[in-house]
Each structure stands twice: as structure tokens, then as C-alpha cells.
């Protein structure tokens, strides 16, 4: 489960931190060495289009807002 822990740390940081995402895209091999995960895994993350990462972040924020009642929902369109 150590491998899973390390992979989740890397993906989690990529989704949370745009500066980390930029570093991952710029030098996947160095980041893989630093984090103790396979280079193939990091290259797979680097291949994810930036707009998909942005969509993940937007979706998260939107769902948080709906669940917290900040986004208006009402009966009727």
C-alpha cells in the first residue's frame, strides 16, 4: 500500500497546487525520483490536459457550493 500512498500524494498535490502541477509537467522524471513513484505514473499525469485538471477543480468548487447551499437552487426552472 506504500505505492498507493505515494501515488495519491502526487495526484493530490497536482490537483491542489498549480505550482506543483507546473513542476510535474516540466520535469516528470525529477518529480518521480523526488516522490518515490514510477516515472511512467508521473508521465501519465503530465499527459492529462490542463483543461481537465481545471474542470476537476471547478467541479469540486461547484459541488462544495451546492452542498453548502451557496449556489441557489430552487423549485422550478
Amino acid at each position: 500500500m506504500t505505492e498507493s500512498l505515494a501515488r495519491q500524494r502526487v495526484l493530490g498535490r497536482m490537483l491542489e497546487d498549480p505550482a506543483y502541477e507546473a513542476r510535474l509537467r516540466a520535469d516528470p522524471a525529477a518529480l518521480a525520483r523526488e516522490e518515490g513513484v514510477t516515472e511512467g505514473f508521473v508521465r501519465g499525469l503530465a499527459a492529462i490536459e490542463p483543461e481537465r485538471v481545471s474542470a476537476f477543480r471547478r467541479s469540486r468548487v461547484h459541488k462544495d457550493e451546492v452542498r453548502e447551499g451557496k449556489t441557489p437552487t430552487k423549485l422550478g426552472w
Partner: protein
Amino acid sequence: MSSFRTGSAVSRASVGIGLREQYLPALLALRDVRALDVLEVMIDDALFDPRRMDEWRALSRKWPLVAHGVALGIGDACGLDAGYVAKISDSLRAIGAWWYSEHLCFLRATAQGAARKDAVDLGHFAPMVLDDDDLAVLSHNAAQVRRCWAGAFLLENPADILGAQGRGPTAGRESGVRFARALEAANAGALLDLTNLVLQGRNDGFEPGSFLEAVPWERVVEVHLAGGRRAGALWVDSHDHPVDEEAWTLLSVVARRAENLRAVIIERDDRLPPLDALLAEVDRAREVLSR
């Protein structure tokens, strides 16, 4: 498949909606209880607002309840929150939920050497690789859930907007194979979100049917249906539109093959229409199941 029991009082392929707070008054006032067979509650809501339990008990006198969760993080390699699992299990028992479903994903990540209590909560479903290491995590965490909750436990195929599960025509079958392995590792039933599958196929270039070909049908207990929307080049699982037409088509496939299917739930989280609009979708689902 005897290891995930479902409530015996759930008739085959009951149809209902996901309960949202805005529908509560209309549901409590609804005279024709036959308009729905079942309700799905967001079990996490009970932890944030204990009043929900009283409301749900009132509703459970009209309809059976099944429970859906969003905050477990069954794939978290840093482990589950034992206190959370215990509270959720207490809530499930208190409302007589016939099963508990969650998303196949991880939600929290820890910095190197950090403890679970210091994990970063991503707040949204993040995809797992689902190799042997991840399957060991699932098996371990699911066993922890089972120690607290003896009822059936289902896992849902979540939307993966990152496309991390693969792209192209073979990605559907490969994702389906990984989903099947995950269900086996967790000894869980399947909650098939057909809309997630449709949108995933559009985003990643595969036929949704190729995913279904790999699904172990005997494990399929529940289906979710919703509507997404297009945002730029991507389809988003926004739950803010009527059920996608392609998802209706897939429902007819599932209905023919999933002999243990017990419930179909219409989900809506945003741009909520009047209850009657959802009840019309319930009727349509019943019609598809009866063919």
C-alpha cells in the same frame, strides 16, 4: 452472490429519487405513495444536521430508504477515519437503510511522513490506478467498513473528468475490468452510474457498452441516472439536467442482464425542477424496466 445482502422488502428493481432537502415538504405531503418505490438519502447529511434523522424516519414510514455516501474515501491509502465510519454505520442502522453505497475513488492524500489526521481533503472523487497495491487498499478499507456495517455495501463507478483511466476505444473495457476487480477486492455490490459512463465515453472516446461487457452482472444491485452538461470540450457530471437519452438506452441493457438489480435512482443536485418532473422520470424508468 451471497456476500452482499439487500433488504428483502425491496421489490425487484424499485424506482425512486435521490432525496434533496428542497423536495422534503412535497414528499411528506405526497398522497400517492405509489409514485415512488424507494428513496435514496445522502447519509453524510445526517452528520452535519441531526434533524435529518427525524425527517428520514418520517419518510421511511412511506418508502424504504437506501443510503448513499460521498465522504468515505474507500480508496484512501492513508486509511479511513474510524470515527466517521462508526457514525455513518450508526446512522444507517437508525434509519433501517437496506444498503450503503459509496464512490470508488480516493479523497484524501497525506504529505510524506504525515499522519492521516493531517491529510489534505481533495473534496472531490479522485481516480485510483486500481493495480494490486490499490486493490489491497480497497480490501483493507472495505473490511473496516464491514466491521461496523453488516448490511450490503455497494461501490459506484465515479465520473473521472481527468480521463486517468485511459482514452480511446479500448478504454471502456479496460475500465470495466478494473471496476470488476475492485468490486471483488472490496467484496462489494455494484452501483452503476449510467450517466457517468455515458459522459466518460464521450470524453474519452469509447462506447459505454464496452464497459458493461466487463461488469460482473451478478453484483449489480443499483443504477443511478442523471443528466450532465457540456462545458467546453468536456461533458461534466453536473446532475442539473433531465436524464441523458443515452443513459436511458443503457438502462434497458442493464435491466435485461442484471438479475439482482434492486433499485434505479434518479439523481438531481442543481437546477432542481418541481417534484412532478422527477416523478415523470421515475415512470419512464418503470416503463423501461417492464419491457
